[in-house]
């Protein structure tokens, strides 16, 4: 793919907390519409990078362009172009399904009419119309995660960031969730996803593996398996982590 297709460009990104280097000269591009897997051991620096890409944290040095915007100069503008969901926090438990849609739609400045239309569209798609007036806390986790994904897509962001979206979700729902990811990607949304499930790493078009603040590998799952002579992504991950130690 050509340079113009890069929707995220990271050049020489460094982030320090005191003496600790959380991101050590990172360089990578993410292409428009691709499913980009972002892996690494706990403490490898993934969350730090994601926070910088989404305008929540400033780089110490380096240049980061997200959807054509320099995140260092215009962090607020970046937030309008992206969607974000995580396992820990996504929707409000004390609001109903419909209220959550209305709240997030309002934050992103959608009209009341647009919010109504979109809410209906997503609830029909997920077969959850009958849940619209239910409080979120009464909804099982797997369904909640599918709702959260839809809400994060409400404003049709260029890029959606998913931070361990399937942790603890049952195996059927986990696969349904990936169906949603593929669909969004087919419609042109770029998906930036972290996961601890190595089978899910295989579903990504390209995978970046971080270790101790550095990028240790970045390529298609197929190429990584050849490069590390591994039979699956789990082996690739174990080999990289062991080499570093």
């Amino acid at each position: 793919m050509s340079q113009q297709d890069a929707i995220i460009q990271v050049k020489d990104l460094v982030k320090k907390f005191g003496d600790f280097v959380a991101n050590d000269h990172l360089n990578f591009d993410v292409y428009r519409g691709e499913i980009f897997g972002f892996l690494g051991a706990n403490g490898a620096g993934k969350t730090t990078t994601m926070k910088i890409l989404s305008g929540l944290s400033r780089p110490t040095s380096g240049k980061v362009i997200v959807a054509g915007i320099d995140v260092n100069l215009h962090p607020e503008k970046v937030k309008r172009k992206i969607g974000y969901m995580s396992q820990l926090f996504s929707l409000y438990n004390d609001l109903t399904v419909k209220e959550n849609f209305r709240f997030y739609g309002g934050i992103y400045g959608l009209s009341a009419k647009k919010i109504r239309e979109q809410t209906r569209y997503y609830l029909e798609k997920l077969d959850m119309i009958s849940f619209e007036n239910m409080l979120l806390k009464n909804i099982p986790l797997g369904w909640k995660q599918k709702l959260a994904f839809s809400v994060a897509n409400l404003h049709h962001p260029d890029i959606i960031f998913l931070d361990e979206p399937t942790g603890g979700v049952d195996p059927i729902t986990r696969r349904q969730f990936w169906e949603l990811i593929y669909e969004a990607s087919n419609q042109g949304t770029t998906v930036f996803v972290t996961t601890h499930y190595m089978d899910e790493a295989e579903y990504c078009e390209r995978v970046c593996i971080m270790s101790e603040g550095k990028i240790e590998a970045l390529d298609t799952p197929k190429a990584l398996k050849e490069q590390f002579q591994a039979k699956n992504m789990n082996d690739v991950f174990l080999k990289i982590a062991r080499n570093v130690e």
Partner: protein
Amino acid sequence: MSVPVHIESLSKSFGKVHALENISLDIQKGELFGFIGPDGAGKTTLFRILCSLMLADQGEVTINHIDVVKGYKKIRQIIGYMPGRFSLYMDLSVEENLAFYARIFHTSIEENYDIIRDIYEQIAPFKKRRAGDLSGGMKQKLALSCALIHNPALLILDEPTTGVDAVSRKEFWDMLKKMQQTGITILVSTPYMDEAALCDRVALMQSGKLLSMDTPTQIVNDFPGNLLSIKAKGMYPLLHDLDGFEGANSVYRFGETIHLATKMNTNLMEQKLFPFLEGKGYQEIEIIEKQANIEDCFLALMEGKTGS
């Protein structure tokens, strides 16, 4: 020392939600027993009842033949419990956390150091650091040390590997295996299906129900039907083309392959599948017969329950 656990007809509801429905099972002395299931399966509720921290609506539990309700004081002396979320004091140092747990159980770090030596030595260099400043892997090792410091006969670990990366997960299981050699009974819950293979026996749970309970090998042997692992260029459309193929009971993605479960003879199935996929224009088609893994079995059991 180790102890058996007996669970009989255990039920617990929260309002309309049936967290546990009529669960019965026996865990042998010295077993490494896994409870495998997603969030909402009832694993945490079960563990809280076992630890005498919550009362069941119905049924009974005994640990070493002691009823957990009537004999809760005795029970608490013989179990070590590592809850899913909270167990460490973030404002105390590593050493202080451990000393605190030791004193609660009227013992000292010195007295039982042998039990935790292997684990604690890995974090000992940081013993003056506040628990809140430890990495995830180190917190886990400290929490495990705290759960073990009073030399329990039964160790109960609630999702110790959730949110933990693949490398640290492997290390943690190596640690458990080693610990089991000392004779302690270990109960561990996890949402990761692949960890089932590391247990002596497992209970597969979903929405408060026991789907199956056996050795991992036996669960896999009991998989209903045969399994084909299929690969071709263009995995996303392939999934949809295979779904609904005559004779296919279920079609799921598994990493870089698709697993197709069938009641039919696999050779026959292969003979039909090749021309079908070639006809659709697929290239680099690979079809291999494969043994089911625990996740295949879990999916099959879930489908059986929902009747789809």
